[in-house]
């Protein structure tokens, strides 16, 4: 019988592996895009919604940085194990599992952010935002590295 945790993990994995979700995560604009007057006007964002997005952004980036730091630490530990004269295979595998767990946390945190933004905006406005971001990325081109700058 499959455990509840395994089920949840598999569902999350399936959602994250879905091309549409991956696309949305890739295309979501960076930073506090809701402070850009044009975007805020196009999406008709209220002051309360902006404040909710601000809170969400701070919380999400704080968590992402925490998990990323943890992941960096685990990567360093793996590097250390792999560089030993006598390779401890079991320790290396165990360390890689830890890295994978951190990686999953990272993905989940990003997805949670996407989910919360979607909840705040609602379907129509979220689609509008994704299209705006796609349009911007299209205009900018894949080789340009400018940020999603406000006018």
């Amino acid at each position, binding site marked *: 019988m499959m455990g509840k945790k395994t089920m949840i993990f598999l569902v999350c994995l399936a959602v994250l592996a879905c091309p549409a979700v991956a696309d949305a995560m*890739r295309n979501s604009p960076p*930073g506090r895009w809701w402070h850009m007057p044009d975007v805020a006007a196009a999406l008709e964002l209220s002051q309360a919604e902006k404040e909710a997005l601000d809170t969400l952004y701070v919380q999400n980036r704080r968590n992402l940085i925490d998990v990323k730091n943890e992941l960096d630490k685990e*990567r360093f530990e793996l590097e250390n194990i792999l560089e030993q004269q006598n390779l401890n295979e079991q320790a290396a595998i165990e360390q890689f599992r830890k890295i994978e767990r951190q990686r999953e946390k*990272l993905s989940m945190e990003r997805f949670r952010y996407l989910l919360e933004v979607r909840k705040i905006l609602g379907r129509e406005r979220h689609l509008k935002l994704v299209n705006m971001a796609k349009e911007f990325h299209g205009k900018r081109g894949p080789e340009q590295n400018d*940020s999603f700058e406000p006018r």
Partner: protein
Amino acid sequence: MSHDKRPQCDIGQVIRSIVDENDLSPEHLRHIEECPVCSEERRILAGRLGLLGRRAAEYSPLPARRIVLPQEDHPLLLRPGSGWRLAFGTAAGFAAVVLAAAWIMFRAGFVTPVSHLDVAGEMARDEALMAEISMLEENPLPEAYRDISPEIISETDEDIFDFIVPVSSLDRWSRGKEA
């Protein structure tokens, strides 16, 4: 001065004795008390003044609010320690007013919390952070092992293929096959 006026009698002295006894010298005071003319003048004047005072009180409208002056026995309006409370209350009230004004201004949009430059700068930093996170999500191996991991090699990388099988070797192989 009506009758039997003596040379020392002076109506000015009599009036001064009514207004303020301390304003007169002891000799003059003694004269007013002993002299029947001056003492009578004083009594009449004092009576008229009293009557005037009563009439004024009768014809004056009563004040809307009764004014009570503090008694001399209790000159302090504030009890000990109430000064601190009053100062603290004033300061707290002032701080509340300032905070309320700042909040109202902030809500009304008078204060811009972030400028466009701040937003742009933050976006650039955030994009860099998210790019790093995406990279870690795709391949979390340490730097040194990332380049030789199967995930990267699985992508079509012409340089890697050229390194493994140089073009010159391929030419020789094809020529040998033809022969």
